[in-house]
């Protein structure tokens, strides 16, 4: 190969302006952009890990495990998959950025990844001791753009499950219990008679099976409301404090439910009708 020829070919293209230096600002912007994406990913991972810990601590999710195998499905049903999957995605993206960066080859990637993971887990745990997660959960019902972002992670996992529910007792009957859940008022049909039935105003975690919008309760456990902060806050937000007015509403809704068979309303329509009419009571 002719050395001169290659040199002149390249230099010709440079001189003619066909080949130009890329601006240093482009490289700077690339670096800053990548750096920002990395920092944002790590911050979100920390926040989501903290939200996950808060959810496990303050929702009904872990309580279901105390029922043994009966509560396993309820636990799986109410597990915060969206939070966990998002957390994993944030960690993976942050790891990918490290792997692609110039520093990753100087140290074994395994150490860097381990350091990143330790940082996220530690910071997330520390953040759980602040009130940030609680505030985010409380705000996730709002309509501001930032509040909407967190909505799927805040209250979505508090929906009524088919195998387990949690809420505040507003009426106790012979074979039933009426509870307020974060979503609605639910009638629990008692499969067995319980030696220690719950009292009005108490928070309960229940396992069993949802059939036609009524819940056949197999086991009920009373829970201190401070141990189930998320459920308590959501119920309070939706129904307000437990006063005579709320109790009266509950009774009216119960009567509405009881009236459905007479009106031959299908369960879904019955629930819709009774819950819609609660505002009129």
């Amino acid at each position, binding site marked *: 190969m002719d050395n001169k020829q290659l040199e002149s070919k390249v*230099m010709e293209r440079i001189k003619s302006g066909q080949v130009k230096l890329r601006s*240093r600002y482009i490289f700077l912007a690339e670096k800053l952009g990548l750096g920002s994406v990395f920092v944002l990913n790590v911050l979100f991972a920390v926040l989501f890990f903290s939200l996950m810990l808060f959810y496990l601590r303050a929702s009904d999710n872990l309580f279901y495990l105390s029922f043994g195998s009966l509560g396993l499905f309820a636990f799986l049903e109410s597990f915060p998959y969206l939070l966990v999957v998002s957390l994993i995605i944030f960690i993976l993206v942050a790891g990918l950025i490290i792997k692609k960066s110039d520093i990753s080859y100087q140290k*074994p990637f395994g150490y860097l990844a381990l350091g990143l993971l330790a940082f996220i887990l530690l910071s997330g745990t520390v953040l759980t001791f602040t009130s940030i997660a609680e505030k985010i959960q409380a705000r996730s019902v709002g309509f501001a753009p930032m509040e909407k972002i967190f909505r799927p992670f805040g209250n979505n996992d508090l929906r009524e499950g088919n195998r387990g529910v949690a809420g505040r007792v507003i009426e106790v009957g012979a074979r039933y219990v009426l509870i307020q859940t974060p979503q609605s008022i639910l009638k629990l049909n008692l499969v067995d008679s319980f030696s220690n039935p719950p009292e009005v105003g108490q928070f309960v975690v229940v396992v069993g099976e949802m059939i036609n919008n009524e819940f056949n309760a197999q086991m009920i456990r009373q829970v201190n409301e401070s141990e189930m902060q998320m459920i308590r806050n959501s119920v309070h937000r939706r129904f307000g404090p437990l006063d005579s007015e709320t109790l009266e509403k509950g009774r009216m809704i119960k009567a509405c439910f009881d009236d459905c068979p007479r009106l031959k309303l299908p369960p879904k329509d019955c629930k819709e009708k009774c819950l819609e009419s609660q505002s009129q009571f």
Partner: protein
Amino acid sequence: MAKNVLTDEQLVAAVRSSNSELYSEIIKRYQEKLSHYLKKFIRDNDELEDVLQSVFIKAYKNLNSFNIHKKFSSWIYRIAHNEAINYLKKNYKYGLSLDEWEYDVIDEKLDFSKDLDRELTRERINQALASIKPKYQEPLVLFFFEQKTYEEISEILHLPINTVGTLIARGKQNLKKFLDQEKYG
């Protein structure tokens, strides 16, 4: 100051501050070296020239991304390495070709051909180098034939220095094992 007394990094700084003419000096300094390195992977001369040209053009375009406090030679070798990998991926032409003196380097390092026919040794070295995995092949080539240090290889291949040491040691073992198997049947 005469351009031939400037260091690579000083030349790059001058090219970046609008003296693009000086880039020809960089081409002069690296054309032979990079051509020698790329020859390991690209046998066809025309294709080699195309790849080499694209290395110098890429290097020029991205000159502003080069950190002036680092070694320029490692940076441009990295570009050449990436171009060679891209070429191999596109053309599925894996394998190495060595210069005359490079067989002696292997021979000397592995002390293999004392009692063997020289021609036969060359053929076997070629087979052995082609048979080992690229992850061992690349650091071996840079270490044996381009006389790069572990640190430079680490910068070129983007691997931790310890890993470079391990890969070279294992590559040598694999090479020796292959050649011994051939030798003793």
